[in-house]
């Protein structure tokens, strides 16, 4: 006697099981309908492309930023030098100076893999690029003086300059900062600003690695540290409280499918938290797992039956099986669905 004979018949669960279809089949031409769908999509997409095109706003460069807002650039540059910028205090994967990416209680996944894209903002954004400037002994001397100073001395110069740069002006192509004891820092930031405005800094931030560079991590993070870039984003309705990165420049739908991800940033307690990023990711990972595992979760998998939306989707079928709403056909035979009344392609 086989084990199968002892097996108890599995109880039929409506939200898990389905009865094999033994009813009528109707003809349909899958290839024809697939081709029609393709033609319709091509026409629709072509129409949208002709009518609306696609956005292509020019990227921000260090050059365009420093030319549009030299003082703002200098203000950011000093924070890179003194290690107080967003990038300088970010933490992994750029450095070990912070936990910008956030943590969930004791769980801090950002630290698990450590620093993979090291950025030392003082050297990578200011001192290093300035060292590459040819025929500028004054700048080279300032770099050497700054490097030779003690950390306390550097901090004193930086703090004084950072305070003064708030009142700085850009006059006749030169950065003018109120007089003060800034050591070599005033020379460094003035030279950095000139280098940025000439476009040389854009190249220096990339060429420190290799000729064919494709990694824009350093210049992008530098640009993102400044208010100029943030203001451009806000003007284009792209900031976090404007549903952020799911939008695009201009009036385009953008990544509308990220609405749920972006939604959580609009929820006060989450959006205002220092740990918003990891909280949102944790929520979305949880919801995604739930969505994938719906078939296994009692209650959740019953929602379709409870909501009865399926009655609309299969209304022709139920009309055929149950008869018209006014009552069953006196003849007793179920009404017939028209031979090929279906429109669909069941994929």
């Amino acid at each position, binding site marked *: 006697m086989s084990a199968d004979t002892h097996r108890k018949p599995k109880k039929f669960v409506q939200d898990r099981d389905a*009865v094999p279809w033994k009813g009528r*089949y109707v003809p349909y031409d899958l290839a024809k309908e697939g081709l029609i769908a393709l033609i319709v999509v091509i026409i629709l997409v072509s129409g949208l492309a002709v009518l609306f095109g696609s956005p292509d706003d020019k990227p921000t460069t260090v050059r365009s930023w420093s030319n549009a807002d030299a003082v703002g650039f200098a203000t950011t540059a000093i924070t890179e030098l003194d290690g107080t910028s967003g990038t300088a205090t970010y933490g992994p994967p750029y450095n070990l100076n912070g936990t910008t990416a956030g943590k969930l209680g004791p769980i801090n996944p950002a630290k698990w893999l450590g620093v993979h894209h090291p950025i030392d903002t003082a050297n990578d954004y200011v001192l290093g690029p300035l060292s590459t400037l040819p025929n500028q002994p004054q700048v080279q001397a300032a770099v050497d003086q700054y490097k030779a100073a003690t950390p306390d001395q550097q901090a004193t110069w930086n703090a004084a300059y950072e305070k003064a740069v708030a009142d700085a002006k850009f006059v006749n192509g030169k950065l003018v900062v109120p007089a003060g004891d800034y050591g070599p820092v005033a020379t460094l930031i003035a030279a950095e600003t000139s280098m940025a405005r000439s476009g040389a800094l854009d190249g220096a931030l990339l060429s420190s690695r290799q000729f064919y560079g494709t990694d824009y991590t350093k210049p992008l993070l530098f640009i993102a540290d400044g208010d100029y870039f943030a203001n451009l984003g806000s003007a284009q309705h792209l900031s976090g409280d404007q549903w952020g990165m799911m939008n695009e420049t201009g009036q385009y739908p953008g990544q509308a499918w990220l609405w749920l991800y972006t939604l959580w940033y609009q929820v006060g307690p989450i959006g205002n938290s220092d740990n918003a990023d990891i909280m949102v990711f944790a929520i979305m990972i949880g919801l995604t797992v739930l969505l994938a595992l719906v*078939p296994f979760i009692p209650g959740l998998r019953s929602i379709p039956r409870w909501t009865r939306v399926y009655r609309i989707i299969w209304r022709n079928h139920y009309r055929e099986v149950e008869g018209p709403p006014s009552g069953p056909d006196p003849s007793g035979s179920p009404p017939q669905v028209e031979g090929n009344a279906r429109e669909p392609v069941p994929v």
Partner: protein
Amino acid sequence: MTIVDPKAGRPDQADLDKAADRPEDAGQWTAKIRTTAVEALPPQKLLPDRQPAYVASWIYVFGVTTVAALIVVIATGFVLAIFGPNWWHVSSTGLFVNSLHLWSVEVFMFAMVVHLWGKFFMAAWRGKRKATWITGVVSFLVSVGAAFTGYLSQQNFDSQWISTQAKDGINSTGAGAIFNVTNFGQMIMWHIVLLPLCVVALVGLHVLMVRLRGVVTPFAAKNETPGEQPATTSGAEVPA
């Protein structure tokens, strides 16, 4: 004049069919794979010309629309790849192809989301279709990733903004150490090689699973008992 039989030298189909039954080939992997595949998905099941009568709703259109839009996405992406990432920034033709690519992605994602929610409200995982549902959800997730890396590969202000915003979320998971959204070279490789391969493979697998199990049957009607055969079984015409 010699008349040459065009079929001469070709194995007859009947011989090929018999080959699968040859005892000496029973242990051959190739024969086993072919036999299993043909048994699971014979041509009539793989490309059926009939469907159950209940397959009569516009919601079914969104599955094939998703596949159609994916074809347009890949075709336009192919053209963009031929000319390289700078082309569409400097050529009006390139910009138009990029626009086609963008809008086909929008149509693809829209159709896929409607398809997904349609299947949710049909509880389309019923009747041993759980794996079909899961491959559908995973296809959606991978498609989100493919579209996302596309936005990062545009080399314009949108790419800059999206990458510098998205880095925080990615970095919070630790994935930023490996998946660097501010690295254009890495993102474009993910966008045009890795993720499209995954999307096409997953969508292909998903469609095969739909064909394997068929379209899910409706819930029991009011005059039916759940778990029993539908009331309209008389005169059943089941395709071979």
